[in-house]
């Protein structure tokens, strides 16, 4: 979302965000043959929708909250595909792509419009979107707030489950590769040694 708004509108509002859903639509006849695969798609869709709607509520900028709103809708589209409602999914994709692209394009001027409206009505609008949150106990609300602020801890989970083990494995392979070699046999090591000896020579 750090790119220019028009490209965000096209890619994240219309094209690439729906590419996965389109692929699933194309293979929907195969999915329909397997209840397990369909159930998996529904589960992934539900989790995505839940994640998107919770995280989107604590996003502080317009484009990020729109991005999470898109994720929520794509999650719902996944559920529709998993349930076999092919044509509803197609309509949903088309409608969502159109509306979301417009919203992304309007995002930069939205704040300006809000300020105009606030001055017209003589103050801010009443806060909205706090109905569902109020159903949870206060402790759960706080936990959920922290969870949403950290975007569901997904980055941490990925780091711990994928990135760190892979890096450790790579370091282990690097150590294995050096078996039977003298400690300093790489070009970089040689350069470091040369620099050290040069510095030593000057100080003497």
């Amino acid at each position, binding site marked *: 979302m750090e790119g220019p708004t028009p490209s965000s509108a096209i890619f994240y509002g219309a094209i690439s965000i729906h590419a996965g859903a389109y692929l699933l639509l194309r293979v929907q006849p195969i999915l329909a043959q397997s209840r397990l695969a369909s159930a998996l798609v529904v589960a992934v869709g539900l989790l995505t929708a839940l994640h998107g709607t919770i995280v989107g509520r604590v996003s502080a900028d317009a484009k990020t909250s729109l991005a999470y709103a898109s994720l929520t809708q794509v999650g719902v589209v996944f559920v529709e595909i998993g349930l076999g409602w092919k044509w509803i999914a197609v309509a949903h994709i088309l409608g969502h792509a159109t509306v979301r692209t417009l919203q992304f394009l309007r995002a930069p001027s939205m704040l300006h419009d809000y300020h105009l409206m606030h001055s017209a009505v003589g103050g801010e609008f009443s806060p909205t979107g706090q109905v569902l949150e109020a159903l949870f106990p206060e402790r759960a609300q706080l936990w959920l707030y922290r969870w949403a602020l950290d975007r569901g801890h997904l980055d941490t989970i990925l780091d711990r489950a994928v990135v760190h083990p*892979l890096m450790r494995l790579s*370091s282990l392979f690097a150590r294995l590769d050096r078996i039977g070699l003298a400690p300093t046999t790489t*070009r*970089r090591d*040689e*350069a470091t040694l040369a620099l050290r000896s040069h510095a030593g020579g000057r100080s003497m």
Partner: protein
Amino acid sequence: MANPAWTLTAVAIAVPWLAAILVAAIRRQVRGIAFVACLVSVVASVLLLSAAPARESLDEALMVLFSCLSAGAILVLPRRDCTRGTMGGILFLLGSTLLGYSTGNLLVLLAAWILSTAPFFVERWFRALTWRPRIGMLLSSVALVLATALIAVNGHDMSIDSLKGRSPGGMVVFGLLVVAVMFRKGICPAHAWVADAAEGGPVIPTALLLNGHFGALLVAKLIVPLFPYTSRNLFPVISYLALATALYVAIRAITENSPRRLLAFLAVSQSACILAGLESRTAEGITGALVHWFVVTVCTMGLFGVLRLLEVRFGENLTASRYLGLAEHAPRLAVFFAVFGLALVGLPGTLSFCSQDLLIHGTLASHPLTGLLLPMATAMNAVSLFRLFARLFLGKRHTGFTVMADALSRERWILAAGVLFVVFGGLFPSVIVARRSAEAEAVEQATIYQPPMNTDERR
């Protein structure tokens, strides 16, 4: 009157060798002499290719590719590296490699195999930092010598055509040939020498040695046709070894900070995919492997070439441990590096996308596990390549260097030719894929086992 094909082959091989001697004797116009010799090889190889039937044109196509590659390497070579020794070595390597591609005789293939490694045993020419590159090349040569000796001892003819389907020497020779392939191609656990060679030796000649792909040639030309029965039963082992190499080296590259070593790992990982495709025994997989052979050769040569040009301009201690911001000074080189890198890892729109697609489909049909894991290796290679690109070219350069040191026009033209090959190959793949498909069918036919009259199969 001499056979025209034989004459053209002799010209393609002998001219670079003679030029190597000439370059050693005459100290002036070294690059010009070497380039003209390569050009003669290119023309002779193209004439051979145009005369060869589609199903039997693999050797000729490889000759064209390698002679074009050598001509490009000679043009790209920075002035600092343009010595008599380097030029002579490249020309000698070109002649030896073309000899290996063109021959139909086992003894000549053995001679070409050994000769192509000969320059790398000359201490002044190839100064490796470790003992592993020479040992790797030596062991591969020893294994091939033993295999050839065993075939000769058993009283077989040395013509590859007459040995087809006869499994000469049985399992022992098959095993020795596989060992030769493993050491030459850098298949795990013999992969480390390739990175050592790339890091310690002269970059462009070492890249040429690796891109000769003699290991894959031995599989396509010798192992598959000579041992159809054994390879049908035991080739999955090689396929899994190739897959393990592709994955192992891709993971290893993730934490590597030396650009030369990192590129060597990527080259090994991608070229291991060629072996997996050749072994798939499906026309799709073999076609993918042959097309990928061409792509990997051009792209890795381009990447190593750009890296050498950067080293000459910005110092030889380039590292991927911090952002160097070289794109500010060398934007064209940055673009060439990005295109070759993306083409190597299968960006849609490039020839590599077609080859990877064919490879994965072919291997999925024969070995589902290999077919599923190969894309993972490619994805990890892409991560490493993006990291290297970002570290070399992005960020802000914190030195007082202000001179624009981008690609010279000589370098631009030749790198642009490589880019055009991978991009136009991707836009119009049928031109390249159709020809490789015919050759792949011939290789696939060779894997179909027909019980011979007299074999050493059960030994």
